[in-house]
């Protein structure tokens, strides 16, 4: 027999008494006797498995039984046993993103009978259900890019019943897109990607509002474009835009469902949630320009964006529903050749320049410059000398019999697809160790696919003393357009 002190919230179950006597030699026996006498207490002290609830603390005199022998702690008639509440609460972890707060704060729209039919496979799952589907209907998602990643992400989001989907792109459908960008079909080649995407998505689900923004995302328009949306899906293919999307998401407090792809490998994560890390926590600075090739340069397996884009769509839907464990603080790596997923833990960096405790980036910056794509000070060139040549000028000079050497700095497999007759191949990465094969007194025309890599090669050669180096503007693509349409483009 011992005395048990009852806390205020449980007194209604003990006839308002603040202390009751119970029989038993251990704490466990005592509590069993207590709940026998006062049945209403049981549900509040014990969980469904018959264990003491975590927020119920039992003290014998002044000692927590967790540090004694737990429920086996012996008690005598001289001991006082106290039930002391821990009071705890909070918001649901999975819901802790601003997008969901917005969705929850809005009056959720009702579903029409057609929508109930369409989404029935969602509605019968308790994790989605009618409430979840209404959240999806209330949600607004913006996809940056209607290409490889944007295609599957947008299609599944629209199929799943997201209420409003925005697309930002300024490109035109090209034959080389069709191997992976499943929003677009062969008849769409030459059309704007957004017009093509809108037709496809409207056919898939006419209930969804499709907003199209035919523009290049920039520091000037990003904040305004992102503002109305709850989640941003980053389907960009270059570093300046990736940093721009990240920073705008952090500044606006909108989650970024991130994905990227290269050759056979992909990455995915969720950045810029309230407590989670952002892209800059992982990569504070971009890689040196030219170090990481783009998909246009390095290629990409056509199905890869399908896998990664669908992961982005899945994470977006989970954020909206507030269900499951989002990819927050987790960086997913996928290798298609080995068919393996790996996961890295990511932490929010307190020193992060944009989401840290003392951010140095508080508004959008010039991302081309930040990523070294557009250097502030161009390479010094002797006055009066040109640095570029057009494909038409080059053709005219070759026809005149001028002695110019064309150096193709692409990779060997690209050189196999098409080439300018008479050009020699030195891939960009080999230029620093092979430039002595070139004659410094000879006039050189550097050439690649579109002019970016060859521009870097030209800068390098000038820096080591070559005087007459020209870059072929627009690369071989422009050459094929203007001079030699018989060759294939890729």
């Amino acid at each position, binding site marked *: 027999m011992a005395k048990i002190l009852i*806390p205020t919230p449980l*007194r209604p179950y003990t006839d308002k008494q603040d202390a009751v006597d119970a029989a038993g030699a251990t704490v466990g026996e005592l509590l069993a006797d207590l709940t026998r006498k006062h049945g209403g207490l049981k549900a509040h002290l014990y969980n469904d498995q018959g264990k003491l609830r975590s927020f119920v603390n039992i003290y014998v005199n002044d000692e927590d039984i967790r540090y004694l022998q737990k429920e086996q702690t012996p008690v005598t008639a001289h001991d006082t046993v106290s039930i002391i509440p*821990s*009071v705890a*609460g*909070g918001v649901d972890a999975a819901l*802790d993103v601003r997008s969901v707060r917005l969705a929850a704060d809005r009056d959720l729209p009702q579903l029409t009978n057609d929508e109930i039919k369409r989404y029935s496979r969602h509605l019968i799952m308790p994790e989605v259900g009618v409430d979840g589907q209404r959240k999806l209907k209330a949600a607004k998602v913006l996809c940056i890019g209607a290409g490889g990643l944007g295609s599957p992400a947008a299609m599944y989001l629209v199929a799943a019943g997201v209420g409003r989907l925005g697309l930002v792109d300024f490109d035109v459908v090209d034959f080389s897109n069709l191997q992976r960008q499943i929003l677009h079909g062969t008849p769409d080649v030459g059309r704007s990607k957004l017009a093509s995407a809108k037709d496809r998505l409207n056919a898939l689900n006419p209930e969804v509002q499709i907003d199209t923004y035919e523009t290049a995302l920039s520091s000037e328009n990003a904040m305004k474009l992102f503002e109305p949306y709850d989640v941003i899906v980053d389907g960009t293919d270059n570093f300046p835009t990736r940093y721009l999307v990240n920073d705008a998401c952090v500044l606006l407090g909108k989650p970024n469902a991130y994905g990227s792809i290269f050759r056979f490998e992909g990455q995915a994560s969720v950045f810029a949630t*309230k*407590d989670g890390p952002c892209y800059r926590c992982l990569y504070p600075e971009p890689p040196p320009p030219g170090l990481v090739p783009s998909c246009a340069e390095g290629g990409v397996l056509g199905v890869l964006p399908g896998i990664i884009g669908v992961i982005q769509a899945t994470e977006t839907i989970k954020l909206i529903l507030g269900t499951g464990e989002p990819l927050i603080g987790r960086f997913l790596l996928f290798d298609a050749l080995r068919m393996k997923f790996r996961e890295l833990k990511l932490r929010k960096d307190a020193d992060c320049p944009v989401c840290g405790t003392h951010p140095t980036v508080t508004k959008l910056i010039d991302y081309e410059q930040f990523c070294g794509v557009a250097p502030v000070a161009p390479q010094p060139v002797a006055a009066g000398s040109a640095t570029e040549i057009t494909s038409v000028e080059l053709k005219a000079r070759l026809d005149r019999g001028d002695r110019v050497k064309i150096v193709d700095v692409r990779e060997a497999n690209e050189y196999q697809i098409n080439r300018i007759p008479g050009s020699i191949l030195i891939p960009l990465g080999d230029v620093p160790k092979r430039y002595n094969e070139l004659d410094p007194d000879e006039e050189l025309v550097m050439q690649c696919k579109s002019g970016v890599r060859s521009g870097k090669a030209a800068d390098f050669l000038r820096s080591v003393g070559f005087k007459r180096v020209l870059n072929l503007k627009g690369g071989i693509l422009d050459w094929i357009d203007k001079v030699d349409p018989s060759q294939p483009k890729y």
Partner: protein
Amino acid sequence: MTERHLSVGTIVEAAIRRHGQETYPHECCGALVGRDDRVTDVVALPNTTEEGPRRRFLVSSSDYRQAERRATELGGELLGFYHSHPDHPARPSQYDLDHAWPTFAYVIVSVAAGKAEDMTVWYLKDDRSSFDEGTLVYGENSDSDPTAAVHGQTGRS
């Protein structure tokens, strides 16, 4: 079923809102002291959670004991607790439900971007299945000393 009412004076209401704003973006917590569904005093308590104070609060058992003692000293009883939901609606979460005590009034204040907004009150159903929303009755709180409304302001943020 009759809906429960909880009276909070202007000063009590302001104290809860202010506490939520002060600890933002972390959750604040504190005890509600009074009698007969009328809150006369609030006791701010430290948030001792180790699970991230942006979305959790925990009143330790020793702070709970202190709150009960303080309630007795103030001549009232412990009516319940308040806490904030930073950037989140003033509705109880599943976590709130899982950890709720019966009969207590749970006041939740939503703090959006640092500004206290909606305030609501909830009571756990006897079968623990969900909360019943009560009604907050605001108004003058003439019997409380404005300077003494918040006792023991020790909230760590």
